[in-house]
Structures are given as structure tokens and as C-alpha cells.
């Protein structure tokens, strides 16, 4: 069990700055997810923790012991870290058992003890009967479990996951998320997990670190990061979002924003001065669509542009003048294209951000 401390981490590949300046404290036993689009530097951070990459500047310590700095790097095999790779990286010339026992044998542990530990690790992932199989005889999900068993069998201080579920099909992925989370809580090993899948992050994480272009955008719990994203980027990356820009016409307790000629919107969050350009964000599931007129603030009349039936929800796109707003209705109701509807967004469900010109 260990506490990881990252201070001012920078990682450059030639001239490209993969990690710009990242500082992080990861608590003992915590399950931390590094989340972000491809190229945001999440894998680089993970590989620096593992010791597979040297840091360009900054420091990484595990349990207050320095493991990485520009002058010094503890070799990966001496860090007591277990890692699960995206490709699983199982060795095809070894059986399941041999894959798991490899690290134990290197340590020179007694054969009887190795057997016991391998058995325990394989039982943990439910593959005890597969010990003597060749790797090529296993399915993707089973290979994933072997990789996991191999990572935990040495009883590491830290577990690292590099997009471990991205090669699995959707059903299995959903199941494995849950299992990983349970296993981590059972073992209590400090875990850093890299993914670009926001749903996966929400399921497994104690805390999510949202990364963007080598910098931390936001660190928070899954619920908070969803409900209170600190930027348009965060809102857009995690979950679905309607984003419209406009001008503040009234500030104070209630902020009013003019989105178009027809639409003025009322919000209870956010402090902005009159005349400022802002982005207004709403979650589609908070947008209420009604076939009857409604009496309340933030109600507009519009026409259904198109709808998609997704089973548990319906995706409804409503045109109000030249604005389009997306709503997710659950349970889904049948609406015709071109049908007149009223939509309503509760003022407290809206979030305001200072408008940024798109990069």
C-alpha cells in the first residue's frame, strides 16, 4: 500500500511536450483514473510512474521515497509496481501458469510457495482451471484476467492499468469494469488507471483526473466532475452537453443570457457581469420536452427536428429559431418530426463559462 506524489512532472519526446506540468497526490489505497482524449499525456504519466520512461523534469515519489527525477530513475523492476497493459502483453511462449509465476521465479521464491501464490492469484480472477493452458487458447477476456493475475501476484505496492479494457467487446467491458473495481477494493492496492472512456472512469474511480494537452483540467469525484465540470471541455468530454454562447444581460442572483433573438435564458449558477460573452451548458437529460405549453421560466416553443430511439431513452433534437437543443427523454415518448413542442430547462441545471474562442 502506498502513497504516490507527483511534483511538476514534465515529459518531452524530442520537442513534443506530452506532459506539460502535472502535480498530483494519490492517497494510499485510492483508485485514481487519468482520463482524457488521446494525446493528453495520460499514458505518459502512467509510464513515468512505472519507470518505463524517464522524466524530463519534476519528481515522482512512492511512500516519500524518490523514484523518478531527471537525474535518477529507479529501474521499473525495483519499484514493486504491477501493471496491466493495453495489449495484455502476455508471453506466448509461456503457459498461463508460467506467465503468472515468472516474477516470483525471478525473486527466487520456493517452488511450493510459488505454486500457492499462483493458485491464489488465478483463483482471484477465476481462472484456476486454466493454469496449464497456452495463452493462444484463451479468449480476450480470459487473457485480460491472466494479465491481472500476473500484475497482482507479486503483491505490489501500486497497480497501474493502461486502457486495459479497450480491446474487449462492449458487454464484457461493462462487466470487467465492475470486477476490477471490486478486486481493487478487496486488495486495497493504490491504483492508477488510464482510460479515454468516461463511463469506464465513472464506474471504477474514487477520483478522476481530467487531462487536456498535458495539463490537469480538473480533479474530482465522478459525481462532482459530471455535475460541476469546470470548463466547456470537461462538460463536453464527460457526458453529453448542449453548449450555446450568448451575452449576459442581467447579473446578480439570477443571471440572464441572450442566446438568440427569441431566447433569453435564466441561470442560478455563475457570476458574470452584464455584456460578458458566456457559454451556457445544459445536460440533455435535464432538458424537458413537453407536448403541452408549460408555465415557468426557461420555456420555449419549438419544432422537433429529428428523434432517435435508443431503447431506454429517446434522443430528441428541437429547433428553436436557429438554435438546436438536444434532449434525452426517459422513458422515451413518441414524437413526430416537425411536431410543435415546448422545452424547459430548470435554471439550476444550467452552468455558465466565460466564452473562449475555439482553439
Amino acid at each position: 500500500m502506498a502513497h504516490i506524489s507527483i511534483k511538476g512532472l514534465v515529459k518531452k519526446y524530442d520537442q513534443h511536450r506530452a506532459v506539460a506540468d502535472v502535480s498530483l497526490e494519490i492517497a494510499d489505497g485510492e483508485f485514481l483514473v487519468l482520463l482524457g482524449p488521446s494525446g493528453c499525456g495520460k499514458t505518459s504519466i502512467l509510464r513515468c510512474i512505472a519507470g518505463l520512461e524517464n522524466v524530463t523534469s519534476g519528481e515522482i515519489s512512492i511512500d516519500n521515497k524518490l523514484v523518478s527525477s531527471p537525474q535518477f530513475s529507479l529501474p521499473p523492476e525495483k519499484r514493486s509496481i504491477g501493471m496491466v497493459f493495453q495489449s495484455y502483453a502476455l508471453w506466448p511462449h509461456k503457459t498461463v501458469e508460467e506467465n503468472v509465476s515468472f516474477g516470483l521465479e525471478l525473486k527466487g521464491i520456493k517452488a511450493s510457495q510459488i505454486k500457492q501464490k499462483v493458485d491464489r492469484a488465478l483463483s482471484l480472477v477465476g481462472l484456476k482451471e486454466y493454469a496449464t493452458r497456452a495463452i493462444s487458447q484463451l479468449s480476450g477476456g480470459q487473457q485480460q484476467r491472466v494479465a491481472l493475475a500476473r500484475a497482482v501476484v507479486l503483491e505490489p505496492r501500486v497497480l497501474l492499468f493502461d486502457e486495459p479494457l479497450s480491446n474487449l467487446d462492449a458487454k464484457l467491458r461493462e462487466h470487467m469494469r465492475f470486477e476490477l473495481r471490486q478486486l481493487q477494493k478487496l486488495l486495497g492496492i493504490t491504483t492508477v488507471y488510464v482510460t479515454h472512456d468516461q463511463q469506464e472512469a465513472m464506474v471504477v474511480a474514487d477520483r478522476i483526473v481530467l487531462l487536456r494537452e498535458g495539463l490537469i483540467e480538473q480533479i474530482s469525484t465522478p459525481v462532482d466532475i459530471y455535475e460541476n465540470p469546470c470548463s466547456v471541455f470537461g462538460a463536453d468530454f464527460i457526458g453529453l452537453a448542449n453548449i450555446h454562447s450568448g451575452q449576459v444581460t442581467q447579473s446578480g442572483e439570477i443571471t440572464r443570457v441572450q442566446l438568440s433573438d427569441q431566447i433569453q435564458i435564466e441561470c442560478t449558477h455563475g457570476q458574470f457581469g452584464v455584456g460578458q460573452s458566456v457559454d451556457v451548458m445544459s445536460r440533455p437529460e435535464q432538458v424537458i420536452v413537453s407536448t403541452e405549453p408549460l408555465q415557468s421560466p426557461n420555456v420555449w416553443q419549438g419544432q422537433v427536428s429529428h428523434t432517435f430511439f435508443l431503447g431506454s431513452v429517446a434522443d430528441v433534437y428541437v429547433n428553436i429559431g436557429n438554435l438546436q437543443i438536444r434532449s434525452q427523454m426517459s422513458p422515451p415518448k413518441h414524437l413526430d418530426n416537425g411536431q410543435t413542442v415546448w422545452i424547459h430547462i430548470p435554471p439550476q441545471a444550467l452552468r455558465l463559462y466565460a466564452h473562449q474562442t475555439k482553439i
Partner: protein
Amino acid sequence: MRVDFKLSRILWFVLIVAVLIIAVVPLIYTIDAAFYKENKTGLSQIRSLVAFLNVFTSQEYLEFLWNALYLASIVTAISVTLGVSLALILARTDLPFRGIFDLLVIIPMFLSPFTGLIAWIALGSVKTGFINVTLIGIAEWLGFELEPIVNIWTFSGIVWVMSLFFTSLMYLFTSSSLRSMDTSLEESARASGATPMQTLLHITLPMQVPSILSSALLVFIFSAEMYTIPGLIGSTFGFTTLPWRIYQDSTAFPVHQAHAAAAASMLLIIAMIGMLLQRWFTRLSTRYITVSGKGFRSNPMNLGRWTIVSWVLVIGYILSAVVLPIAGMLMSSLMKYSAPVINMQIFTLTHYVQIFTLQNMLNALWNTAWLAIVSGAVCVILGFAISYTDARKPSKSSRFLAFTGSLPVAVPGLVYGLGLLWVYIQTPLYGTAWVLLLAYIAKFLPYGIMNSRSGILQLHPEMEESARMSGANNAQVLRLITMPLMKTTLIAILVFVMFQSIKELSASVLLYTQKSQVLSVLTWHYMDAGNYQFAAAVGVTQTVMMLLLVVITRAVFRVKFEKAMGS
């Protein structure tokens, strides 16, 4: 830890120097030698442009160059046509017994082109060739007279023997590229309404063009730089190619060393240009490989009325390139002398008895064997070390080493032989088999580097990283993970280099002395002296050695060598 680091630094430095000395110095020496005044035994101390100008501007030498390029063009055209047709027939049609034919067609790869020549001289000589003898015998029996039909001692004879050999190379490259082609591309052509023939002509073949061009260029370079076959046959009717002239200039008294050096530089330039073009085509062709190894084969094309033509082509090739030569060479090796009439008195085992009793024969056998093993081992180890470092921990020095080490691939064996000869003739190394070893290592190290590189690139780096995470250090990763995973590739390289060493003739002929004989040089020697039967016996011995190697590789390592070589 620190000592370790320093030691590896020193080793690395030694490696760079060694590769420079082996691969680059002989070349520089050759080019430099072109700019001296000649005397009867070699070079004087005086600088001169005479030889250089003579070679690069005189009608005489340009004609030799033209002859070499002309011969190479014809050989390439025939080999490409035959090789590609065979590959298409055996990889894409429903011809029966494709599997066996596939194995038979690549057998010439395991023979040396020069043993092919020995065999075809036995088969195709005017008066004593088995083909003419047999046909005339049959004709006589039927009661009419027949003039000899085949004559190997002609320009067509040169083309014939060389084409037979290079067809097999073309076949190997094209069929492996056909196998790595995504079949869904052909299936989607069928789905768009194309017939199998239209699919072949409009999709399959056009997609193979870069790969065919790249192998065709290789064949062109190999045949343009070959001096053994064109020289031995061509010299009987005054046909001289540039490489043959280089050989004569450098070996026949009075020696024209500067001329040989200048002409060798000319050959080097052509080979380098060819290799650069070839690299370019190869890069184009890898862009065409979309998905590989799906293992899903669509229905083979129905040959229909083309079946007979295909049969004739496939069986005709196997007969001329495999069955007849092996049979002819075996028979010739058992005969006392060439004779227009064959009877029982003419057969003898003397040649084989001599090979295994005469001291210089045994020396040659022993030299061939240990040179093959040592050069194979050195090329595998150095090639792997260089490629591994360059792939996993690239640096300027690793890139430099990988580049200079691969450079000799574009250098004709003849040019290397000359360079090494001139560099080492003053040293005690000359006259020993060690000079041959240097030549073989220089010539075949590129295969070690390039093939192990492609093997390493197929290995996901995460395999090694996961071993680090399991507590293995660098050396343990290499020993317990990387090397075992690359076993097949490494063995294939080893066997391939051993093969090439056993076959190597063009550099060996220049570098051998009485003490450092090898089998291939012996065949050359006896062919030149007109003792074809003894040459055939040595050729058979050499061939048996190579076949044994294939069988052993298969049995011991379970590596299908011909598959590993095509990739």
C-alpha cells in the same frame, strides 16, 4: 551497475569500429585504388586518372557495361514473367497438387546458381550433353539422323541458366506478397461484379506491382553483378560483361588493378542506385499491404481451359530447374569423362572417394563447414544486437551502425572480394580462411540486421515492459522473453546466412589460396580446368550439405525455413 554501463559502452564502440573496418574500409580502398598509375603487379605510388577515364569513357568498357545490363534485362524479364505466373498459378488457382509444387518450385533457391551451371553443362553441351545424347540416341533407334538440338555454350545458354535460378527468387517474393494481401480486396471486386479473371487483372496484379518491381530490381542487380556464369560460358565465344572483365583485370597477368578498381566502382554505383530504387519500391509495396495473416482464403480461381498451359509451365519449370539438373549433376559426377556414348564402363565412384580422402578436399569441406557456422553465428548475434539497440534504444550511433552495417547489401560480392584482397594482401591474414570469414560477415551482416529488425518490430514492446514490471532486469528480459520469442527468426537468419556462405563464390574466388579452399571455389576451379565430372561431384556434395541443413533445421528447430525466408 556503473561498471556494467561502461563495459557496454566500450563494447559498443568496438562494434562500431569493427563494422567500419569490415564493411566500409574495403569499399573506400577499392574506390581509392582507381586513381593510381598501374604497374605489372599492381599499383605504383603515382596518382593517375588514366584508369578511371579509360573505364568511364572508353568504348571498350562501356560496351562491357552494356553487355552486363543487356544480359541482366533479359534475365530479369524472363524471371519476372515466369516467377509471377508461377506464383499466381500456385497461390490463386485450383491447380491440383499446388502444395507439393510450391515446395518444388523453391528448391533452386537451395542450390547455388553455379551448381545449376555445372548441371546444365552436363545436360546441354553439344556433343556430350545428356539431352542431345538421349535425343540423338532415340532418333537413331527410330532410324533417322538428328543434329544436336541444345547448346548451352551460347548467349541463350547463359540466359537460360541464370533465368532458371532467378525465377525461383521471383516466385518466393511474389507468392509471399500475394499471401500477405488482404483477400477482402479481391472479394469486394467479386462483389462489384468482376469475374475471377478480371479480379486478377484489375485488382490482384496491379496491387502486386510495387512488390514485383522491387524484387525485379533485386534480380536485375544480382544478375548484372554476376560474373561466374556469364564469364565461364561467355568467354568461349568472346562475350564479356563488366564484372567478368573486372575479374580478369584483377586476376589475369598482367594485372590491371586500377582498371579493375575503377570498373568495380562503376558496378558499385549501379548497384547502389538499383538498391535505392529497390528500397523505394519496397516502401511503396508495404503501403499496399493492408491486413495480413487473417488466414482466410477465398475460393481459388477455376483454371478451366488454362489448366493444361499451367501444367506445362509448372512441370516444365520443375523439370528444367530441379529434376533434370539434379539428375544430370548426379550422373555426371559418377562418370569418368564426358562422352557422346554412355555405357556402363564409364561410371565410377572415384570422384567421391577423392573428395573424402584427398587432403585439400577435406580442407575445403572443413573450411566450408566452419565458415558457414561461424559467419552464420556472427551475423545473427551482431545483427540482432544492432537491430535490437536501434529499435528499442535508438540513438545516433545505433542508427549509424544499422546503416553502415546494412550498406554491403548493395555491394557486389566481386567488389568486396577485391577490396578485401587489396586491403589484406599485405597482412598475415591473407591466405587464411579468416579473410573469407570477413568477406562473408560483411556481405551477410545486412541480412542479419534487416531480418532481425523486422522480427523485433513484430514483437510488441509491451511484452518486454511487462517483464520489467514483473521484476526482470534488462538482461533477464533479453534472455527470458525477447530471445525465446524471436527464436524462429534468429534460426532462420542463421540458416540463411549459412546457406549463403556455402554458396558464396564471387568473393571467395578472389580471396582463396591453397590453404583456404572452400567447396564453391573448388567447383569453379574444376569447371575452369574442364574437369566437369569432378566439379559435379563437388557440386553434389555442396548441395547435399545444404539439403541436410534444411532437413536438420526442420527436424530440430521445427522451423520451416522456406517460409521464414520469404518474409
